[in-house]
């Protein structure tokens, strides 16, 4: 537990050394979102229809872009092998890494979501459903992404590979989340979706770090 707290603290410290790093995922998110109208054409009606999709994809990409760095710097400077050596639970360490990743790239997106949705002309029900779904889903994204990040940490350029490995894992969550938003926009019940997303989150918390810890052990074996 000590390790968990200290590790999250350490990651936050490293990030807040460059305060811009904290804002970067947000700016990235806004920039990507404003890119879509440029690519698709500026008609408000059309934009509104596909807005949940756009916002989702942008959030996903922001998460993925920062995913590769979850273990990379620790691997390259040798911190990761020190952790493996220390006989402390790698599970806890991995969980801490995921937690700080979420704090630094998931949570800010959740907070920014309402603004982003406004830019794309979404209405109120949609905005709340979107924000709630992102809140439920983003920890899962970090947890699953961690597996990919740990698997590719020893490779020279992991970025794209992480995406490829992790994307199939993201599909069910993405499908559920957009279905939930569409249900909310149509005015129907969303509680079922919420339970499902919570169940997936719970499963991911219990299982994903096991896989990630195993991958970390493989990465340092060289």
């Amino acid at each position, binding site marked *: 537990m000590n390790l968990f707290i200290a590790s999250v603290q350490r990651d936050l410290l490293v990030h807040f050394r460059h*305060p811009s*790093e904290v804002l970067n995922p947000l700016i990235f998110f806004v920039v990507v979102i*404003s890119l879509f109208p440029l690519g698709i*054409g*500026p*008609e*408000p009606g059309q934009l509104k229809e596909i807005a949940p999709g756009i916002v989702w994809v942008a959030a996903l990409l922001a998460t993925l872009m920062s995913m590769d760095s979850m273990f990379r710097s620790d691997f390259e400077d040798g911190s990761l092998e020190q952790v493996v050596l220390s006989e402390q639970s790698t599970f806890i360490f991995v969980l801490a890494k995921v937690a700080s990743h979420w704090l630094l790239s998931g949570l800010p997106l959740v907070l920014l979501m309402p603004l982003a949705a*406004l830019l794309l*002309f979404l209405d109120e029900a949609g905005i709340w459903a979107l924000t709630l779904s992102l809140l439920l889903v983003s920890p899962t994204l970090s947890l699953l992404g961690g597996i990919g990040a740990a698997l590719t940490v020893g490779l020279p350029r992991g970025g794209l590979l992480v995406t490829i490995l992790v994307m199939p894992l993201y599909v069910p969550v993405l499908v559920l989340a957009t279905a939930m938003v569409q249900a909310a926009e149509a005015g129907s019940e969303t509680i079922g979706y919420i339970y499902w997303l919570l169940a997936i989150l719970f499963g991911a918390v219990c299982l994903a770090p096991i896989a990630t810890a195993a991958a970390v052990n493989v990465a340092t074996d060289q």
Partner: protein
Amino acid sequence: MFKWFHRLGSPKIFFEMSGRWQVPLLWLSVVMLTGGAAWALLFVPPDYQQGNSVRIMYIHVPAAILAQSGYVMMSGAAAVFLIWRIKLADVAVKCIAPLGASITFIALLTGAIWGKPTWGTWWVWDARLTSTLVLFFLYIGVIALRSAMERHAGAGRACAILALVGVVNLPVIKFSVEWWYTLHQPASFSLTEKPTMPVEMWLPLLVMVVAYYLFFFAIWIMRIRNEILLTEKNTDWVKQWLATR
């Protein structure tokens, strides 16, 4: 001429000279700002089409104009820094970027507020709006790079390069976005043609534009002076100057 230029490039001389200008500049701009705002809010007749919402113009238009010339000034300073390595120019770039971003943000915000009553929506992906948004991103890029490189010796040069690249790109953006816009949007609320305004609307606007510029310069100079004090805090002249306070 060049000698004068170099002399002004010395932080100490700039600090002394700007010390004399700073206060009058600030006062003049504040007086003009309040005067212009009072004129615009109280005495200008409401527009026959837009009613009172037209008064936002007196905040919006100067901000929009200044947003663009701010970027040009920033890249001018960046060029001076890259070519002559005058440290003060770097300080100027550093100090103007957040100012420029703020004024661009004001232009975006007031535009959006104005858009609601006139166009019925906060935002459309129109040519001018889009290019202003991109301008905002360009400023943000310079700020983000600066703060990411905080402790790097090369931060100044890197930001200067980025600022210059941005200024080359700016006309291209305006042009392309305008073209794109004219292809897709009906020209119902074209901003490109200058409205034929009566003089009593146009004159206060001029006052406001000048006031904005003066205020902008005043703040810019103040920020530069602060930065100089921080970076030169170990020099004798700063210590002397502080002692006289």
